[in-house]
């Protein structure tokens, strides 16, 4: 059974049919790529998967449950986490706080115990602190823990966003152009990181990216979206050689 199953997903913005009858199936622990020309509707698909936009038609089933139309924060609780195309960190909070934010919705302590600080709450807080530090260590960011997120260099911010999303304990991680603004060297590191995340956390990852080297290297399956419509789906080699994909997206050199 597939983890995520998207059927006939459609959304309209006024007159613009941004995504139309889109289908997608992602299995457990799969590395999946979503590519397509600018404005094809990829980010819009993410926004529908995470509840930011409500689809005008179709269904989204995750882990055997319909999740279309529910609130973004409830979707996180169903174990889908994401990063954003334009990084959206909590800029004035520290790196550590940013990561701890990922755990926060899972916290057990109530408001009252937070105010009077019960021993249980203190313990829970200490545990979260520890876990977050562990995660940061994995990302080689433990030294930056007390830095404000907005003061990090761009590449580090991207990685922090991924770390934060992982803290939210996802089964499916959505990455929107994680390599944007990175140089080839950094992109290569990112490639490794993504694979490693999948293996370590045993989760599926859906990736939007324009860096074909990264996509083709990492993804086991790829779906191509063009003008809101599904153009092709398949293994990387199939996509690379698909003439329609070449014409609409890859270009001669890109292929």
């Amino acid at each position, binding site marked *: 059974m597939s983890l995520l199953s998207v059927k006939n997903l459609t959304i309209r*913005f006024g007159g613009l049919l941004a995504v139309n009858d889109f289908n997608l199936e992602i299995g457990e622990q799969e590395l999946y790529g979503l590519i*397509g*020309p*600018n*404005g*094809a509707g990829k*980010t819009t698909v993410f926004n529908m998967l995470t509840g930011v936009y409500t689809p005008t038609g179709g269904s989204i089933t995750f882990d055997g449950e319909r999740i279309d139309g529910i609130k973004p924060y409830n979707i996180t609780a169903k174990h889908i986490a994401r990063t954003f*195309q*334009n990084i959206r960190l909590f800029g004035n909070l520290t790196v550590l706080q940013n990561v701890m934010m990922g755990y926060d919705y899972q916290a057990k302590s109530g408001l009252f115990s937070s105010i009077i600080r019960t021993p249980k709450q203190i313990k829970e807080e200490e545990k979260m602190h520890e876990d977050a530090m562990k995660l940061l260590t994995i990302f080689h960011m433990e030294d930056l823990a007390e830095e404000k997120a907005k003061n990090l*260099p*761009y*590449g*580090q911010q991207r990685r922090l966003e991924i770390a934060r999303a992982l803290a939210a304990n996802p089964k499916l991680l959505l990455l929107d*152009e994680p390599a*944007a*603004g*990175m*140089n*080839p*060297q*950094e*992109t*290569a590191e990112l490639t490794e990181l993504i694979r490693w995340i999948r293996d370590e956390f045993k989760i599926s990852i859906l990736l939007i990216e*324009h860096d*074909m*080297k990264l996509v083709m290297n990492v993804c086991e399956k790829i779906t191509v979206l063009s003008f809101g419509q599904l153009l092709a789906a398949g293994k990387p080699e199939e996509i690379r050689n698909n003439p329609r994909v070449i014409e*609409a*997206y*890859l*270009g*001669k*050199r*890109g292929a």
Partner: protein
Amino acid sequence: MLRVENIDVYYGMIHAIRGLSLEVNEGEIVTLIGANGAGKTSTLRAISGLNPIKNGEIFYENAKVDSLDAHKLVGKGVSQVPEGRRIFGDQTVEENLLLGAYLRKDKTEAKKTMEEVFKRFPRILERRKQMAGTLSGGEQQMLAIGRALMAKPKLLLLDEPSMGLAPIIVEEIFDIIKEIREQGTTILLVEQNANLALQLADRGYVLETGSIVLSGNANDLLNNEAVQKAYLG
């Protein structure tokens, strides 16, 4: 045409640019490559007068320009496509383009330029009346370039124009950059995608933590081992 001599840029306590010098000759494409946070954007912003410089001087067409306000330099023929596009999201595509020609007096000529821009980016023509803020990332980048071209600049500063674009568009944009140069515009191109940038450029500078560490003929840099290792993957 453009000469940057020994400049320093600070953000509060952070010393972002350290004694950087570079030169762009008329008609050239010069590229500035470097990792994240190396200071590429800071350099461009210093040139266009958005960031004040601490030391050093900047000359444009043999005139000292480092104390000019940003908007004055535009009048002298220097346009910039800023990092992250920075289009005016609450105005239509067309209005964005008109703003690009803000300082131009000849309205009919400006109209012509707009036609040219539309010819180059048909996608933008389709969305002429759409709010720029609702464009996709790639569409916005095209608009940002189109907007800069509206000023008919003599020197065009491009900050990572390929960021977030589909491969086919990147190709297109690099073709456009070439064309723009052929029509007589000098270009300073900042890129992470060193491979493409160096293929296109005449000369290149490599920037690391605020200083130039390497410079020279684009071809030589392409074949330089250190460069290949660090920037070409």
